């Protein structure tokens, strides 16, 4: 994946190549603020090359017309190859995204391998053709419904979980027989680039997966508008998602969008605080809050705000902030200097709007890592749901605690948001919790837990949190077209009475 000059290449038609004109960009390690790698910088022309390769591979049928079983076996081989390359992938992921090595080795790699295996299994199950009932009118016929791949899919992945979220698109798209052009985020292209080699080693034909790192404004736009791209799947901000939908509308592309969130986390008055307190910290602090389904609005019974916040602050203070490579660290950096500054500006906005800052709120510079991008875990109390820190997605370790008087009021405030990605409720009483869960307008709701995602359960957003669903049977179906084939089972002209009745044909 390294070119002769040491830079990471684009991956087109089975080969690592430089960008047109030799342009490159630098990847910075957020733990240290130092340059970690140099990567070929894709352009519109590179996108066109990649799309043509994907188109040619799709049309050849060498992948798209293979049986589900044959494709499933390649996916299973990819899962095994990811296991073989686990350490290499983990270091690249940590170096570019700031994910803690502890989490990546523990969870991310296993979940990616599991996903490829799951998609292999699902393609065997859902690729079956369905034969409909033998309905004999207007004449004897056999009707079947078949699933076929859509074609060339553009997958645009975000910086927060580069490997996992690229795989959420790649695995189902490949499993269902599509070809792919993958654009990783500019901050975090390294593991995506490595996937090219891994898939090739596992037996994926050349041209089926192509990888073009580069800026969203050029590479992303070019993919969303390219006439030979049949589908765009994007994970990222709502602002960019809206733009992709607009550009994709030019050629009526199929679109799947997984966008922002400001997910409400409701603690009921009978919750077991021994799990609700650490659970609510987990909900907003995993990967420093740079997770789309983070529980960033915490609704608490007014009379319990003091106790809950006190316990959260005490536990949050125990967390160790430092280099993502350091196995003893709990919290690593945020992705970039710019993101760090955005987060700190939201802290200022929260103070100005009258919320009470009870923890953190500042940049943190651990010894020896002064140039890294670290932000302290931050908690505001007495937040009003109308404030900017309660309405806008911050994508950082910032929690808005909002007191409530009645459960109805909590639910109303929870739903008073342009987002609807996730939500949660904590209670000892499953009946009460289910009642609240049924009222939260969001695509995933946890009861007494958070961040529990399953590769067989659909994930996606209500309202402006997205369009469509990823994962599970539903996510796989989003990479297919449905075709009805109706086959007449008579060759007798006399059996076509309806031609005569409807159009008066006599021949």
């Amino acid at each position, binding site marked *: 994946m390294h070119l002769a000059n040491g830079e990471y290449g684009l991956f087109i038609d089975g080969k690592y190549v430089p960008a047109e004109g030799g342009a490159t960009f630098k990847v910075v390690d957020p733990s240290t603020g130092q340059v970690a790698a140099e990567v070929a910088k894709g352009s519109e022309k590179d996108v066109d090359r990649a799309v043509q390769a994907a188109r040619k591979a799709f049309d050849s049928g060498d992948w798209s017309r293979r049986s589900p079983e044959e494709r499933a076996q390649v996916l299973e081989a990819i899962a095994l190859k990811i296991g073989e390359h686990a350490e290499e992938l983990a270091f690249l992921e940590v170096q570019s995204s700031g994910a803690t090595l502890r989490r990546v080795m523990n969870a991310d790699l296993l979940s990616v391998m599991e996903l490829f295996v799951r998609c292999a299994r699902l393609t065997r199950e859902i690729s079956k053709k369905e034969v409909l009932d033998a309905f004999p009118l207007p004449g004897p016929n056999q009707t079947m419904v078949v699933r076929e791949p859509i074609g060339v899919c553009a997958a645009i992945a975000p910086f927060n979980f580069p490997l996992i979220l690229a795989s959420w698109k790649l695995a189902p798209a490949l499993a269902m027989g599509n070809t792919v052009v993958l654009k990783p985020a500019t901050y975090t292209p390294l593991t995506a680039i490595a996937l090219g080699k891994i898939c090739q080693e596992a037996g994926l034909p050349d041209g089926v997966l192509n990888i073009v790192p580069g800026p969203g404004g050029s590479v992303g736009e070019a993919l969303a508008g390219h006439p030979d791209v049949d589908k765009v799947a994007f994970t990222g901000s709502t602002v960019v998602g809206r733009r992709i939908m607009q550009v994709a509308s030019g050629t009526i592309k199929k679109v799947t969008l997984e966008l922002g969130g400001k997910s409400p986390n409701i603690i009921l008055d009978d919750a077991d605080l021994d799990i609700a307190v650490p659970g609510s910290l987990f909900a907003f602090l995993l990967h420093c809050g740079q997770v789309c389904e983070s529980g960033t609005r915490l609704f608490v019974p007014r009379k319990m705000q003091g106790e809950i916040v006190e316990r959260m602050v005490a536990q949050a203070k125990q967390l160790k902030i430092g280099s993502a490579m350091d196995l003893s660290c709990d919290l690593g950096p945020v992705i970039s200097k710019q993101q760090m500054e955005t987060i700190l500006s939201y802290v200022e906005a929260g103070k100005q709007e009258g919320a009470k800052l009870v923890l953190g709120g500042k940049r943190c510079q651990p010894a020896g890592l002064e140039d890294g991008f670290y932000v302290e875990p931050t908690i505001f109390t007495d937040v009003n749901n109308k404030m900017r820190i309660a309405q806008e997605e911050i994508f950082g370790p910032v929690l808005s605690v909002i007191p409530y008087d009645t459960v109805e009021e909590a639910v109303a405030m929870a739903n008073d948001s342009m987002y609807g990605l996730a939500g949660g409720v904590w209670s000892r009483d499953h*009946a009460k919790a289910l009642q609240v869960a*049924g009222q939260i307008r969001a695509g995933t709701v946890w009861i007494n837990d958070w961040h529990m995602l399953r590769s067989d359960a659909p994930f996606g957003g209500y309202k402006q949190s997205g369009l469509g669903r990823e994962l599970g049977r539903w996510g796989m179906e989003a990479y297919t077209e449905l075709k009805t084939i109706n086959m007449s089972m008579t060759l007798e002209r006399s059996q076509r009475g309806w031609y005569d009745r409807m159009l008066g044909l006599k021949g």
Partner: protein
Amino acid sequence: MSKTLLTYHMRTQVLQAPGASAMLPEILAQLGCRRAVLFADQGLTKAGITARVAQWFDLPHKGQGPQLVGIFDKIPQDAESSMIDEGVRFYREQGADGLIALGGGSVQDSVKCIKFVLDKGGKNILSLMPGNFCFETPPSAKPMNIPHVGIATTAGTGAEVSPAAVVFNSKDKIKGDLAHPFVGPDVAILDPELTVSLPPKLTAATAFDALTHAIEGIASPGANVFTDAYGFEAVSAIFRNLLPVLEKPAYIEGRNALLGASCVAILSFVYAVPGAYPVHNFAHAIGAHFRVHHGTANALFLTAVMEAMPDLYLPRAKDLARAMDLRAAAGQNAEQALAEVIAALKDLRRQSGLPDRFSELGVNASSAMEVLPMAVMRDPIGLIYPIPLEIIGQVLQNAL
């Protein structure tokens, strides 16, 4: 025992956790049920437990899973044959395709019988149990294909997992026995939150029912590695948890432990084949004639039988003492250990507030002495291990 064929086939899937009853609709759907009938008793309905379980069908939204098409909450104490027949009729009238048994032994066993009658296409349970006894085995005993979930509301009978039922024939005044490898629920739910409102007397009596199952299993000639493992652990768990639960009824961990203990205690009992069940022999007789609660009767006769039939218990006395954490008994001989075990059982019974004597059950002693010897001899469970007449008299004297 090692040269006897051992058959161990526990087919019921067990799901246990505080709040586990919330999983009921999904479990029924998984079993292929679309229209379920819930069987319960009046006590549960008055305590709000029936409504609490029924609500899961409407959460978070109505009509998206299996439907609850009827509630039959008239099951009396003991699985009375006439009410079983009425339950069969009710089920058919609702056009149902699945059974939920919510309750203790009476409801659990009634619903097993209802399923058995439905499977045979019959109307009347007694007509299927000539002589108040029916024992079906493979290959003629086959799965019944009627989705069936048991939810325990007492920690005692373990009937939610046992492949057998006790049927009360009120005309003959006999408790009949039905055994069939597929008569138990497909899934049993053990949710300790449903047992919190059980009155202390019943909590204690049902725990002694479980204790009796465990000890009778352990002492049976057919005891084996499965029944020993279950039986001794059940004894130990009940000794550790019963008094703390009686002291603090909402102690969920203790309730959960008692539920688990009662579940494995019945397995110790039913899979120790051939079994010797003399305590149950007495409890069924007095239950059928004087309607004494089954667990209460077991609690009373457990020590009376152990005193009158020591040879049955002596080989296991030291192991029992160990399970009860009676450390002093460790260095003693079997006779001394058995005496300590019996003393500890009496002690636990007294501290639990259960009767020590006949007189406290409201049963007239002279009429009991007159009726019971014959009733004990006629009880079907005694067929497997009959008790000599003079021993019967001695047990009754011990309990008087």
